[in-house]
């Protein structure tokens, strides 16, 4: 079976996981990449329904059936880390039915700073936090912040309003991440989101052309 590259996106409730996906998918689609989304929700299908409506129904960037909502039994971290069986099962179905996909994005349910993805589930792990949690957030660390492949700090437009110093956040992120990358973004305006897209294309898709482009050439 074809292995389709997978990114896991984790982070606290309200940090902007779904919004980041809603911004990334159009950028990836613009470059010709075909993406599907699995949204692990803690309590509802709202995120999956909203992404399906915004990205598939309204904009036609992907088929509606490629946005899948998954319930996690109140244990969002278990579903992506200790027991990713249900996510793997859905991915295997996707890999079998849609081998032409370039990328699968798995959104974890909102969780705490210890979230990580099982390496069998995600090839690349993005952890997202936002400035509203305070500028201490990167400094406090936690498995998610420290071990992810890319740390994203969202809602930088709110920094002044919540008294968060972005320079402190940058310095602490550099220190705690030990040279691993991080990006400061604002999903409302797309500021910095292209850089996240570039990380994905370079590190996950290995700068390869979209499968559809390769097929057309052949």
């Amino acid at each position, binding site marked *: 079976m074809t292995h389709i590259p997978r990114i896991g996106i984790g982070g606290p409730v309200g940090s902007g996981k779904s919004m980041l996906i809603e911004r990334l998918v159009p950028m990836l689609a613009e470059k010709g990449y075909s993406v599907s989304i699995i949204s692990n929700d*803690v*309590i*509802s*299908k*709202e995120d999956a329904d909203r992404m399906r409506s915004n990205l598939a129904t309204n904009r036609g960037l992907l088929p509606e059936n490629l946005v899948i909502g*998954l*319930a*996690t*039994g*109140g*244990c969002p971290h*278990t*579903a992506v880390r*200790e*027991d*990713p*069986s*249900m996510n*793997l*099962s859905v991915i*295997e179905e996707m890999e079998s039915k849609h081998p032409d996909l370039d990328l699968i994005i798995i959104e974890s349910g909102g969780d705490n700073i210890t979230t990580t993805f099982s390496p069998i589930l995600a090839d690349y792990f993005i952890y997202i936090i936002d400035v509203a949690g305070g500028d201490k957030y990167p400094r406090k660390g936690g498995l998610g912040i420290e071990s992810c492949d890319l740390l994203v700090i969202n809602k930088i437009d709110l920094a002044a309003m919540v008294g968060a110093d972005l320079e402190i956040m940058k310095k602490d992120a550099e220190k705690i991440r030990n040279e691993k990358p991080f990006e400061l973004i604002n999903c409302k305006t797309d500021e910095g989101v292209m850089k996240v897209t570039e990380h994905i294309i370079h590190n996950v898709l290995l700068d390869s052309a979209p499968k559809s482009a390769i097929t057309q050439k052949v």
Partner: protein
Amino acid sequence: MYMNIDEIEQDLGVMQLSDSFFPTGIFATSNGLEFLFTEKKIQGMTDLIGMIRINITQQIGPSDCVALGNVFDSASKHDFDKVIEADSIVFATKPIKEIRDASVRSGVQLIKCVTEFVKDDKILNQYQKHIIKNKVHGIFPVAFAICCNALKIKKEKSMMMMLYGFTVGIVGAALRLGLIQHFEGQKSIHSIKPIISQAIKEFSNKSLLEMWQFAPQMDIIQMSHEKMDSKMFIT
């Protein structure tokens, strides 16, 4: 009397497959409990025990346990045709799509996991190949019987493990929903023990043709869960 090495290894297999840490995705299922809770149709430990009792005596006892027993016997005799037959029949006894899909997903993942560390069991390997080729469903009780047989666990113990795992799954869901507290969880499991033993006694030696399940109210509850907009659990 001391246990010999084989007995110790078999019991370790029992503990490994029964552990809620074992990855089959069952932690995300409530078998309709979430719907009852949301609709305020279940209150506390007594109702919870009643629900589990109905599930065991009317649903998974006469269907999943019978399938498990038959597959276990067939696997021991290397009769793979009977395994395929059981897979097909038990799949057909699950009228609720959400429950059926969850059972298949858990079964397939169970087989995938066990084949990572058991390499020399012919029936297990055959069943996995058939799953990959979409020739069988990979439904949970069949997968569970094959894995238990591969780990040399006895039939009755396998049935006990499946029913215990099912019970713990629902009790865990009740705890996370806030329906009961942790001591009540353990009291509930303790109260279910005679129901589990009775089910093993009653269903361990039935033929595939004697398989049934009849719990229309549970079916409706589980169907209603499928339609819920906001939910924590897969079933």
